[in-house]
C-alpha cells in the first residue's frame, strides 16, 4: 500500500531541488529556455515581479491555461504562486497538479491575518521569510521549503542578504540556548517551541532554506549560496535582462560552482546587461513587498 502527500515526500522534492536554480517564467517559450539553460524548476507566473511593481493593480494566481501550457512544455517541476491566505487558489493549483505552491508576498495578500493551512494539502508549499520567527511560523503551518523574501522585482540583492544573514545568525544563537531560554525566545520572535527545538538539534531549519528576491547576476547567486542558501530562485533577473538564455545558464553554473571564483569569472564573461533594477534604499515603505505576510 502506498501513501501520497506525506511530509517526507513534500520535503523530499525540496531536497531534490538543492543546488539548483528555480526560474520565473510567464510563457511556455520562456519555460523551454529556462529548462534548456539548466533550471531545476520553473515558477509559472502571469507577470514577473518587476512588471507587477510597474503596473500595479491586484496581482493574483496565474491563468490556468498558461500553467497547463508550461506543464506540457517542460519535464522539470512546475511551481505556481497563490496569494497569502488564499486557500482556494491553492486548491485550484493542487487540482492542476503543480509540483510546488509558493504562498507569495509578490501577489496581493488575500488574508491579512492568516496564511494557508498547508498541512491540508498533498502538494508541498514554499513560503518567504525575513527572519527565523517568520520561517518557523510558516513551517508550523506546513511549509516544506522556506526562502528569503528579499525584495522581489528590484534586482537589488541587499534584502535577500539581510534576510539570509538574519536567519543564519538566529540559528547559531538557538544552538547555544537552554530550554528555558528557548521558551523565552519563542515568545520574543513568535516562533513555536517545537520548531525551535528542531532547529537547535539540527543546526539548520527543519526544511530546505532557499534564497529569493533580487538575484540578478551569477555573483548574486553564488553570494547567496555562500551565505548558506541551499538553492536560489531567480525572478525578474533573467527575462528582464538583455540576454535571458545566456544569463540563465551562467546563473545555473554559478550556483553549482559557487565556491570556485575562477569558474565564476568564466561564467560571468561575455554577459550583456543585467536588469536595470531598483535600489531598495530609494523606495518608499509602501512599495516594499517583503513587509507583506505575518
Amino acid at each position, binding site marked *: *500500500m*502506498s*501513501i*501520497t*502527500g*506525506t511530509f*517526507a*515526500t513534500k*520535503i*523530499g*522534492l525540496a*531536497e*531534490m*531541488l*538543492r*543546488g*539548483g536554480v528555480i526560474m520565473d517564467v510567464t510563457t511556455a517559450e520562456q519555460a523551454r529556455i529556462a*529548462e*534548456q*539553460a*539548466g*533550471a*531545476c*524548476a520553473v515558477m509559472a507566473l502571469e507577470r514577473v515581479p518587476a512588471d507587477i511593481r510597474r503596473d500595479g493593480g491586484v496581482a493574483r494566481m496565474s491563468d490556468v491555461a498558461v500553467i497547463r501550457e508550461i*506543464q506540457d512544455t517542460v*519535464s*522539470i*517541476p512546475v511551481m505556481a504562486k497563490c496569494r497569502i491566505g488564499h486557500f482556494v487558489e491553492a486548491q485550484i493549483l*493542487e487540482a492542476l*497538479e*503543480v*509540483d*510546488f505552491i509558493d504562498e507569495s508576498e509578490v501577489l496581493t495578500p488575500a488574508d491579512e491575518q492568516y496564511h494557508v493551512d498547508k498541512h491540508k494539502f*498533498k*502538494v*508541498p508549499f514554499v513560503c518567504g521569510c525575513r527572519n527565523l520567527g517568520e520561517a518557523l511560523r510558516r513551517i508550523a503551518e506546513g511549509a516544506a521549503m522556506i526562502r528569503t523574501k528579499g525584495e522581489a522585482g528590484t534586482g537589488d540583492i541587499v534584502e535577500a542578504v539581510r534576510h539570509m544573514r538574519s536567519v543564519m545568525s538566529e540559528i547559531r544563537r538557538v544552538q547555544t540556548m537552554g530550554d528555558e531560554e528557548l521558551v523565552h525566545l519563542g515568545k520574543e520572535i513568535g516562533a513555536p517551541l517545537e520548531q525551535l527545538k528542531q532547529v537547535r538539534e539540527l543546526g539548520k531549519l527543519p526544511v530546505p532554506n532557499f534564497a529569493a528576491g533580487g538575484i540578478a547576476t551569477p555573483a548574486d547567486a553564488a553570494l547567496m549560496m555562500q551565505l548558506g542558501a*541551499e538553492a536560489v530562485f531567480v525572478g525578474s533577473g533573467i527575462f528582464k535582462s538583455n540576454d535571458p538564455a545566456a544569463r540563465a*545558464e551562467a546563473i*545555473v*553554473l554559478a*550556483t*553549482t*560552482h559557487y565556491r*570556485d571564483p575562477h569558474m565564476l569569472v568564466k561564467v560571468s564573461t561575455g554577459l550583456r546587461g543585467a536588469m536595470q533594477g531598483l535600489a531598495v534604499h530609494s523606495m518608499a515603505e509602501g512599495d516594499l513587498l517583503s513587509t507583506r505576510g505575518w
Partner: protein
Amino acid sequence: MVETVVKARVGVLALQGDFPMHVKRLTELGCDVREVRTAQDLEELDALIWPGGESTTMTRVMTDELRAALLEFCSSKPVWGTCAGMIMLAKTHPDPRVKTLELADVLVNRNGWGRQVHSFEAELTLSDSLRTETPFQGVFIRAPRVEMVGEKARVLAWYQDEPVALAQGRILLTTFHPELTHDDRFHRLFLSWIEQPNSAAN
C-alpha cells in the same frame, strides 16, 4: 565492518540535487566524503554516489571532460544512482534534454509515476540478501519507472511486482531515496562492494 567503512573515500556528485543528504548519511556511516563537481574531484575516490535531482539540469551542467571522467570511473568502481542519478546511469527514451551514460542495461521512463502529487511512500519487497524482519519503506519523489531490465542486471527490490532497485556488476540503481530514510541496508550493501568487489559479481 566499521574498520573498513572508515577507510572508504566516497564521492557524491554535487552538480545539483540532494547531494547534501547523501553526504550526511555517508558521514554518519564513517566514510571520508568528498563533493564532486569536476573531473579532478574524482581522483583517488573508492566509490561514487550520483544523487537525485533533475536529470535535465545535470545534463546541462556536466562538461564533456567530466562526462568522460565519469564514464571511466563508473565503469571501474562502485557507483550508486538514486532517482535522477539512476536515470543518468541507465537508458531512457530519446530526448534531447537528457544525455545519460547508458552504463546499466536498464530502460527507465523519467517521472514515470507522474507529478509531485503522486509522489509516495510504500513498503518494498526486498530480495533475499536484503530482507530482514524489519520492513523497508521506500520514498519515491517524481520517481522514474523501470520499463525493461537487461540480462546482466538483477533486481534487489520491488514495489507491487515492479523493479525499483537493481544491480549490474558494481552499479547500484534505486528509483527511491534510501538517503531520506533511516534504514541503511542499501548504504551498507553499496559500501561492502568497495572492500569486497567480488561479492557483487555474481
